[in-house]
């Protein structure tokens, strides 16, 4: 069936099976490979993107459910060559190693900051507790989100 959605500011229309998951639509149909797939059971969060400004695990949502809605993925974080503070924060604080969970972590981190610019460490940890990282042990991810929160100089482009 026909599905139309705006992804990172560009409108896309595709004819897809009703059962197609949003994560596969983004990755296979639109070839935006920054959103990853990791578990099928909504536990790992490596597929997190935004639908209408809310973080969503895109392996748990059908592409057709995003019809007419606005999606933002990791590819939509930077403004051209200029990185979003959340991206800069992950670099500054060594918030990533293998890079696989990173897009999902950054999408959640960006949303957390937008909704509470004065988070405590505990609130950040709680905020990312639906997502798994196997490399970093989380401390540097928490620091990266804190860094981005403390350095909001780049425009927040939601």
């Amino acid at each position, binding site marked *: 069936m026909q599905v139309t959605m705006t992804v990172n500011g560009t409108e896309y229309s595709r004819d897809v099976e009703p059962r197609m998951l949003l994560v596969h639509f983004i990755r296979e149909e639109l070839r935006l490979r920054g959103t990853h797939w*990791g578990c099928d059971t909504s536990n790992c969060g490596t597929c997190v993107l935004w639908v209408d400004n809310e973080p969503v695990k895109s392996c748990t949502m059908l592409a057709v459910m995003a019809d007419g809605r606005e999606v933002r993925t990791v590819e939509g*974080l930077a403004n051209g060559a200029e990185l979003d503070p959340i991206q800069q924060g992950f670099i500054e604080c060594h918030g990533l*190693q293998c890079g696989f969970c990173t897009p999902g972590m950054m999408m959640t981190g960006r949303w957390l900051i937008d909704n509470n610019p004065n988070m405590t460490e505990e609130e950040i940890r*709680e905020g990312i*507790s639906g997502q798994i990282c*196997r490399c970093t*042990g989380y401390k540097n991810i928490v620091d990266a989100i804190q860094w981005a929160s403390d350095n909001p100089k780049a425009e927040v482009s939601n």
Partner: protein
Amino acid sequence: MTTAPEVPLSPAGNPMGFGSMKRVEDARFVRGQGNYVDDVHLPEMLHSAILRSPYAHARIISIDKSAAEALPGVVLVITGEMLAAVPRPSLLGDNFAWMPTLSYDTQAVLATDKVRFQGQEVAFVIATDRYIAKDALELINVEYEMLEPVMDAKKAMDPGAPVIRDDKGQTDNSITDVHGAKTWESGNAEATAAAIAAAEADPNCVVVTEQILYPRVHPSPMETCGSVANLDPVTGQLTLWTTSQAPHAHRTVYAMVAGLPEQKIRVISPDVGGGFGNKVGVYPGYVLSVVGSLLTGKPVKWVEDRNENLVSTSFARDYHMKATIAATREGKILAVDVDVLADHGAFNGVAQPTNYPAGFFNIFSGSYDYPNAHCKVTPVYTNKAPGGVAYACSFRITEAAYVIERVVDCLAAELQMDPADLRLKNLLRPEQFPYMSPTGWEYDSGGYEKTMRVAMDIAGYDELRREQAEKRAKGEYMGIGISFFTEGVGAGPRKDMDILGLGMADGIELRVHPTGKAVLRLSVQSQGQAHETTFAQIVSHELGIPPEDIEVVHGDTDQTPFGLGTYGSRSTPVSGAAASIVSRKVRDRAKIVAAAALECSPDDLEWELGRWFVKGDHERGKTIQEIALLSHGSLELPEGVEGHLDATTVYNPPNLTYPYGCYICVVDVDVATGQVKVRRFIAVDDCGTRINPMIVEGQVHGGLADGIGMALMELIAFDEDGNCLGGSFMDYLLPTAVECPNYELGETVTPSPHHPIGAKGVGESATVGSPAAVVNAVIDAISPFGVRHADMPLTPANVWRAIQGRPIRTDMAVE
């Protein structure tokens, strides 16, 4: 940035050598531009899915695939019977249905006779779309005859136990290594037994025995395993993109498995989303994508889902250990003996050097000074997934460190000694290095007590003990756990160590372009360790070329020299040494070119970072960049000296390196619910020279989280029917940000004397050292209830039951 002050900065602000430096890799990863296997997309590429066995042990009566083949979009359905009919011109067998494992055993690619674990590969569907491929799995009808499964390793050798490997003509479930041995022993059995017997008879001594299980866990990298195979039907060229920690070793294995000429095989391991040992072995799925491309003439992609990753790929541990420690009542350790029952699953797929069938488990004597140690490891087949040693494996040093650190705490409890005092009394002293361990390992360097004191200072150990006493008086239970570990990493000297006959030395190649920029080609493969950053720093340290001017190429067998890959913390100890040595070769060559240019003898030249100059005339010299251009130019060079600065080398390590550390974990236990909260985690590592301290600390953080996970929640258990109870992230629990504390790190630096830059490797240190610290802390917390030991994972239920005096076997769903 914590760049050491003596290291000059490059024009881009990076350390010209060692120091914390932002990672080169991050630029692509934070933009979502990493290139993982599932990101590979080729024209006409087909997708695939594997039908897996629902049973742990069953005979295959028939497979009806006609309905699946009739599904529109399905291109081919491959069964074991079909594989058995594909001729394989190879020394290792005459068809594709079986493949060799890394331990000289065989493993079914697709089952032909029996299925031997739940999740075993039974059929392979190739289709135009991954959804159709999965649909087709539902249409394959397999008729099974159920057989009794062997799920309890302790019953695998019982008389009358069902025989799993009847394909090999076996009559029991024993495992035989390549030398024909069914048990693997190390150390001095007689002296150890005598010392323990003497201690038992001596009222001034104690002997403590404990049954200690390191249950089955799983590495679970965030990216599952997968591959894209493209076998060109005209040229015969196979290009395989795959999740591999060892692309060169995999290429050779494919040459052997498939009988393909090795020069026609190109293995590309692109960005890998975490490995932790899970991506060392060769899995049936990889082979099936190759066979699929062979049979369809099209590229075939196979990417497993999370359930498949958990139930079928390399697990870790599954060691049932009985440890006996003898000591004087003053706390001097006299002897340790460990008897291990090792559950290897249905095929012996353990990745380890040939002559070490129990990996490096026999380093269990640990960090202490005592003469008598012995271990015996008995491996058995069970109806569980094959593989093994994965999960920051260190070739079983994780099990070794756990058993000694746990049993030392048991001894401390028996002696009513503080576990810190007991360790300090027994730690090896600096003057004992190089130290020959009772099981034959030559520890290269160490200053153990200093490292332990640093950890105790950071922790405020005495204050913690005071707090604990006060809390206990109020009915609150906190625990302090210590672990002191020694690893042997960087396998290894080729005279001793090989995998499938491939010596564990690493090649490397360094090219210096006319403009002085360089390309370093590595055999090892990053799964997040940031080789593109740290290896550039090694070259920069040796040659004074800015790190940003050095491109590091890895993960492509056509682009890099042969080497054994990244696992067992071996990249820095082996390939890191190679990077240093190849840079020094370039430096030596540059000296000759500089001498020709400066019209002097090479003997008159002196090196400073990035430049050769004439001794006593500092102004008269040539930078490495000037020399690079000269080496490509028209300068007349001395007789016998080639142009260019490029060099290659193969590094064969003379010994392992021996990183060590002291970890202290502080927990609070709610004895009403059994809930454990990790309050603090102090980790002091000595991994020798730190190339990039930021990256070292990041690796330690990750390993500490691993340890918290294994100690408190991770478990692949089975029920008696053979059902895997850890088949999803809803059942196989991994630590999240709320279970992990803010780590407190410290360091001491004791360089390896035999490594060119003194680095020891650190990738697995924290995973090796941390589980014991967490478990020791929990047991310490609940020791007032008379608990001396309880097995991982220390879930609330298990902690509560231990407090009630009813600890259970955590590896089985039945008691």
